[in-house]
């Protein structure tokens, strides 16, 4: 999965490449505190799967804030500016048309469309950027092969640590998850 397999590639007994190790938890509180332990152990390629959002989980996981707002701001303002320029060029330079006796290039008349284009491209950037940063859409994900994983949309909470993580080690990672109170700890094949 990860770029540049610098670390070891683990395989299961059947010879399949290991994607990740998962552990189940019974309650939001259990998975919350387990996430804190995984974070403190220095893992970076891992995730928590829950049936509903758990407040404060970003902090427990040590997730950094997304840069998406910055991207939206820059692209939104740029497109608003370009939209203004487009109208100025169309009405003022390329095809000047007398309207209501107003001058050809009047900033007043350009404001609504400038505003709308700023909003439109901000919205596009928000949606597309969100998909991009979440690496969506994904047509296949190894976790979906596991029947027990389906319970994270019902009554179970799961932590999944990817084998591509530089700290991943089958024994130590298992010990960490066990120590954090995880049950049904298992490997997931690619």
């Amino acid at each position, binding site marked *: 999965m990860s770029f540049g397999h610098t670390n070891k590639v683990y395989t299961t007994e059947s010879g399949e490449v290991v994607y990740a190790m998962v552990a189940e938890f019974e309650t*939001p509180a259990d998975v919350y505190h387990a996430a804190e332990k995984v974070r403190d152990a220095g893992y970076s390629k891992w995730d928590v799967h829950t049936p509903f959002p758990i407040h404060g989980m970003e902090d427990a996981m040590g997730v950094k804030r997304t840069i998406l707002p910055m991207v939206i701001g820059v692209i939104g303002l740029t497109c608003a500016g370009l939209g203004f320029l487009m109208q100025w060029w169309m009405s003022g330079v390329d095809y000047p048309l007398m309207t209501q006796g107003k001058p050809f290039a009047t900033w007043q008349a350009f404001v609504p469309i400038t505003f709308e284009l700023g909003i439109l491209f901000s919205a596009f950037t928000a949606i597309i950027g969100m998909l991009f940063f979440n690496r969506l859409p994904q047509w296949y994900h190894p976790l979906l092969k596991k029947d027990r994983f389906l319970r994270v949309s019902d009554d179970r909470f799961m932590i999944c640590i990817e084998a591509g993580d530089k700290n991943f080690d089958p024994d130590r990672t298992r010990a960490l998850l066990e120590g954090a109170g995880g049950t049904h700890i298992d490997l997931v094949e690619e």
Partner: protein
Amino acid sequence: MSQVSAAGHSHGVGADHPALRSSNISMAPGAGTGLKSAFIGLGVLGLVVAAIGWFKDSTHALAAFHVGVITAITICLGATFFVLIFNLVNAGWVSTFKRQYENVMSLLPIVALLMIPVFVLDALDGHALYNWMSAPAHGDVLLEKKTGFLNPMFFYARSAFYILLWAYITSTLRRLSLQQDRTGDKWLTAKARRTSAWAILVLALSSAFASFDWLMSIDFKFFSTMWGVYFFAGSAYVGTATMILILALLRRAGKMEGAVTSEHFHDLGKLLFSFTVFWAYIAFSQYFLIWYSGVPEETAFFHMREQGAWPLVGLAVIISHFALPFVIMLFRGIKRNPTTIAFFAVWSIAAHVIDMFWVVRPVAHVGAADPVGWGMIWIDAGAVLGVLGLLGWLIVGRVTSGPLVGVNDPRLGESLEHRNYV
């Protein structure tokens, strides 16, 4: 664990919360006297300066005083609007500081009484402000058509009516809130909500008509159906700014720790930001339609503000009221830091003063070589700071008069646990 399950779900947290300990939510006796004397000093000094200005140029001083009075009224109207909205939507996140909104709200009828000196001075000055009352305007066909509405008797009666309505609404809501402090009756919250339901309609109409009467009628030929909204947008903006300032000062005084946090400042900052945008949207929409249609009575309003140095003032309004705060307040950190958002609160109040200055003051020097009257700008500084000094004095008096938090508000738990999560 508390972060996981308690957040946003707890109700009816009582006085056992550490943030609600008495020393944290009440002012020591005599606290705020320094600030109070500073404000009353500023108020008296400013009004003395304005009074001197009255003898130099009465119309200038009158218009300047009107700028100050309108600013003070909009601050209190903004607070009133938010109390009504918070009651109506059962807002939980504000309950630790809704009392402060109510404090400012309760000053609305008092501050609105300052319209009486405005009317008196206007009459003494030959109706320089409301010149449709003066003899030369009589016979103007545009005025004749409006006399059914725009006649002195009805005008003064309406003004009195607005103030009476506001006095009734604000005193009722304040009474219910203070009563809850004493009795702990949770149903008073529901009662306040019922009152707010009709009061919000009344406030919307009365504040819009007040803005027509007290501001729009300064140019009796001018009309804009957007005017009430424009006035409201400015009120909500400056009301939020005042609230942020009060809370930041209380936090600085070491009060409300844990009761008003970065999370609350963040949301108040979002409100301030949104009303910056809303104001700009309304202000531009009003200008845009008038610019496009080019009806003489309407364009005259903007034409008047294109004389001399008035465009510079207009530019200052656009930059200070919208462009600059819009770009800077986009950033999350600015809104979460009490110091930076308090800076923008003061900034916003100043921007709103410039906006009201741009609305009211052109009437003072129509057709003069210097239509802004820069030479006597000290009168404006005196009058505006004088009225705002009085308002500040009243606000500090209200804030220090009782507990800083409505301690029996059933939604306190929600506010104490309030977090933004994003």
